[in-house]
């Protein structure tokens, strides 16, 4: 085979990476560009080397495998592995993705490689799989505890407890947090359903606000209201938002 393919291995356990390297030896047209032990390194390596295939463990520190996927612009072919994660297995099954259950044999690995190699030549099929996993993730995840964002090449993790308010900006959402402002490519609807309604309220089509930082609601003009936050900032309130706020604050 003439074409050389680039590979990145992401797994937090060294012995697990060793297995993959060992099984990959016979594929002499593959180049292992990087071995990463966490999602941070993983994202960096992916941006730098633009790999064709990524071996990805699902449970990892800081940024789990799925959170990493969200940040990828170009979707490489992914060969997932997991020891035991029924939730992840479900996600793979509904999106028809192949996955390796640790420990796995050389034969099973070769089978996964064959499928991965076919997918490197079939972009649409691969995109469909990755998007299927992301969709499953969006639909099934409980309330968020942290949000991973990428600004240029910098990756930040924002714990939800540091989040003040969110603002819609075209296809993005601006996250206003204790650590600064970050843009995330998601919808307001996504955040509305993935933030605990005991902590956050959608006050307006374009705003979601942490309830505990609301100082007061002020009449503004004839029939419209504005929210005053504890830092002095004020935000518009919609009619339905006002109804919701009144129910929560009373």
């Amino acid at each position, binding site marked *: 085979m003439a074409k050389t393919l680039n590979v990145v291995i992401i797994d*937090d*356990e*060294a*012995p*697990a990476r*060793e*297995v993959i390297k*060992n099984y990959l030896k016979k594929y002499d047209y593959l180049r292992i560009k990087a071995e990463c*032990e*966490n999602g*941070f390194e993983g994202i960096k390596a992916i941006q730098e080397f633009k790999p064709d295939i990524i071996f990805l463990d699902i*449970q990892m*520190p*800081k940024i789990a495998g799925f959170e990493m996927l969200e940040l990828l612009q170009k979707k490489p072919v992914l060969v997932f592995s997991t*020891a*035991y*994660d029924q939730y992840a297995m479900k996600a793979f099954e509904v999106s028809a993705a192949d996955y390796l*259950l*640790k*420990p*796995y044999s050389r034969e099973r690995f070769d089978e996964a490689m064959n499928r991965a190699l076919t997918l490197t030549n079939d972009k649409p099929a691969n995109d469909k799989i990755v998007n299927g996993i992301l969709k499953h993730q969006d639909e099934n995840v409980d309330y968020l*505890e*942290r949000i991973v964002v990428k600004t240029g090449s910098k990756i930040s*993790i924002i*714990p939800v407890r540091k989040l003040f308010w969110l603002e819609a900006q075209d296809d993005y959402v601006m996250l206003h947090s204790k650590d600064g402002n970050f843009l995330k490519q998601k919808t307001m609807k996504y955040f509305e359903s993935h933030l605990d309604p005991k902590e956050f309220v959608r006050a307006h089509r374009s705003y979601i606000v942490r309830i505990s930082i609301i100082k007061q609601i002020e009449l503004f003009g004839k029939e419209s209201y504005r929210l005053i936050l504890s830092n002095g900032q004020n935000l518009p309130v919609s009619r339905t938002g006002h109804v919701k706020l009144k129910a929560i604050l009373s």
Partner: protein
Amino acid sequence: MKHPILRRRNLTFYISAWIVISLIHVLFLRFSQNIEVLWAFIDSLVFNLLYAAFALSFWYMCKSISIENLKILKLIENHGAAAAFSSLIWFGLSYALLMNIFPVEENYRLFLRGSLVWRIFIGVLFYFLSVAFYYVYIYSVNFKKQLLKEAELKTLVKEAELKSLKFQINPHFIFNSLNSINSLTMSDPQKAGEMTIKLSDYLRFTLSKNEKHKTKLKEEIDSIKLYLDIEKVRFGDKIEYVEEIQDKCLDAQVPSMILQPLFENAIKHGVYESLETVGIKFSCSLNGDYLKVVVENEYDPETSTQKGEGIGLKNIRERLEKTYSKGNLLKIEKESNVFRVKLFIPIVEK
């Protein structure tokens, strides 16, 4: 237990039975003893009505004299006396009623006087019949209760076993360890062998222990060492383990598998979630009547999900409370980047 006859359905049955007995009684007096129909009816009514009422009260005798706890002789003694006594009262009362209320004719009066012996005999017979019925009833109710209780107990035991198995062995840990072994077979077969033995020893220890039992602290610590050794193969020098154990603690009795969830927690929230080396500190000391066990781990408060008392710690708290009938034996402390669990295990003399 409620009276078995004083219920609507059973009462109808009881009354019908007595009507039948009363009719037989009338026929017997009329044709065998040559008593006039009217007197035969009155006789039957008084005697049988009284006995029907008496028989209901025998239930309370049966309830207070249990057949399971008394010797057979004592039982016969008690019931024999009760049978004779109640039969005499029955006859005396019926006799007095008949003599005083109704203008009794001579022929019947003679018959009534002469009937004492066989009436007492019938009274005793009825007494034992009712008692036998009541005992069968009590026995069957108890038996059903017993069956239900046993079934409940069985499901409880099963649930507990399942629960403990689930808490004891984390499948994620097992499969990842096996994956490490698979890796070592290629790079370092001898180490693969060592790791296999360690994992087996650890699993065997875990499986042999039951949540209800107690073990020596030393055994618990030995199994924790195995666990940490295995995790060290997986995570290399990402774990920095320090221990401080007073020798005199080692023989103390502790509930089995009490340490493992603490270390699993420390590894999960410390090591799994961290990019750098994570310190885990373990100390045991004797404090008066208590064995004090402390497990602490460093963690990253920025991103960690270690909030406080998860299911593992809650389980330990409950077990300590149940085992020692005392609360507050588990304390959780959180400092800037240290998560600490303290156990206070009462020293119980054997």
